[in-house]
């Protein structure tokens, strides 16, 4: 027994680089050998799906991309999933970005979904308005007069020459707002400055870290559903029946979580034993 306790305590103080190696292996293995664990949509993801699914055909949807390469693994699959769903239903999509990086991410997603998968026409079915600096002030500008904020789109085409911008002057001309957000400015600002003051229905997809900051809005009905982190993206992929990057990451995610939980438990056992021992010696 004592030897076992010794071993546990010793392992509890192992060089942390061993732990790094374990995590690297655990995350890498399922990427090469997928396990195919089943995905169950959670309530809040289901709500996002239902809200988008219930939009009348030909709705005008504002999709805002507020994420960059650092959070791409979490948000990008959501943006792609939502775009697929929107285009499948024949809605018009207007993309804005509050983060400079968001413009690159949005372009990549549109290229993949709108151009390659659905063969849609730029300017008629979708438009990338692009990035404007100014954080919440940009939202305020879009809410009151989008044409002052955007006179040209991301391809430097004047707004007047874009057919689908006809009749769009401010946020009340859109039917739905989706914010794919990884932080500030993002979902919180859209709720405060657009959804709450104008009443436009809104859903969001956020990084895991942000979920708790945003959940009270969802509960109070200020946001209709939420996609939470990579698992949220995987659930959405499941709901629209098109598995993608989110789904393929779920195996690695699952195993890594189990390993970290085991780490916490083992670490605490070691801590407990050690404390018992130091109590005895003093």
């Amino acid at each position, binding site marked *: 027994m004592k030897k076992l306790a010794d071993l546990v305590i010793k392992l509890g*103080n192992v*060089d*942390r*680089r061993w732990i*790094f190696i374990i*995590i690297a292996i655990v*995350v*890498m293995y399922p*990427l*090469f050998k997928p396990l195919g664990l089943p995905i169950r949509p959670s309530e809040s993801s289901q709500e996002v799906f239902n809200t988008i699914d219930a939009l009348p055909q030909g709705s005008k949807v504002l999709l805002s991309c507020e994420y960059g390469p*650092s*959070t*791409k*693994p*979490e948000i990008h699959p959501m943006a792609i999933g939502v775009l697929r769903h929107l285009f499948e239903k024949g809605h018009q999509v207007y993309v804005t970005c509050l983060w*400079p990086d968001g*413009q690159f991410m949005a372009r990549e997603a549109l290229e993949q979904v709108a151009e390659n998968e659905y063969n849609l026409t730029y300017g008629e079915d979708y438009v990338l308005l*692009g*990035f*404007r*600096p*100014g954080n*919440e*002030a940009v939202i*305020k500008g879009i809410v009151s007069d989008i044409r002052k904020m955007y*006179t*040209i789109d991301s391809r430097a085409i*004047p*707004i*007047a020459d874009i057919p689908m911008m006809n009749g769009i002057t401010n946020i009340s001309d859109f039917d739905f707002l989706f914010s794919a957000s990884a932080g500030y400015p993002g979902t*919180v*600002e859209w*709720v*405060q*400055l657009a959804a*709450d*003051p104008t009443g436009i229905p809104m859903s969001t997809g956020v*990084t*895991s*870290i942000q*979920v*708790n900051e945003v959940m*009270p*809005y969802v*509960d*109070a*009905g*200020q946001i209709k559903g939420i996609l*939470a*982190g*990579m*698992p949220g993206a995987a659930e959405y992929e499941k709901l629209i029946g098109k598995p993608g*990057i989110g789904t393929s*990451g779920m195996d*690695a*995610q699952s195993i*890594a*979580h189990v390993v*970290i939980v085991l780490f916490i438990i083992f670490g605490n056992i070691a801590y407990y034993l050690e404390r018992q021992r130091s109590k005895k010696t003093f």
Partner: protein
Amino acid sequence: MFSAEIVGAWIAVFLTLAIFSYLYRDNPFYKIAEHIFVGVSAGYWASMYFWTQIQPNLFGRLWPALHEGLSLGFLGKLWYAIYNFFNLIYPPAFPDGGVATGHGMQLTYIIPLILGIMMLLSVFSKFSWFARWGICYVVGMAAGLRAYGFLNSNVIGQVKGSVIPLVGDVSTGAIINGIILLIGTISGLLYFYFSKEHKGWFGTVGKIGIYFLMISFGASFGFAVMGRISLLIGRFTDLKSFGGAAYHHASLWILAAMVILLGIWSFFNKEEKATKGVPIK
């Protein structure tokens, strides 16, 4: 053979692994990558902000493109003379004949231009207070926007969310959950009540409040772990694709080279190792 795509992949792999090498210990590769990051991101941000805001929305309003046949008065000519000077220095942002971004001329935008230039001048320590005016404009506006937004969405909106339905078409389960939610919110708020001693019943309420807060922090904790793992998965997916034959197995080659170089470096920097990196108990 050496297309931009493949060279890019090798660079991307090198930078990725250089940052990961921090896990072994702080080393020159990490420091190089980190400093490149600092420099590149500054240049990147400056370019993005200039081409998406300053050029189209500021210069586009101060010197909009002149339509043909439009005649300028003397002052107008003088005004565009300034522009022509800029045109001489940096034609990409100041093309001949004005900036064509669909704006009309709005001379009030001289104010942000002046405030902006004052901001830039503040790099010289003598003028360091110059930045204050611009910063104050930003602070004031943010304060006005936030005071409204936060009071409306975070306070009144949440008050509304707490007003749970107790009668009518609601299930018992929903009512119980609603009441738990209400108790949690109120006790959580009272935990942050500072001008009364937390004793007796008030102390109990505060205790309940902190328990709810802790459960909530626990959820944040779970989500934080989840997010960080997701990002790692994303990175490994990229490395995996760069390890493919299409990129001449960039990941593998660079990994091997870096391990060898780090090994050599560690060998010559042993002394430092004794004080850093090794966990001490």
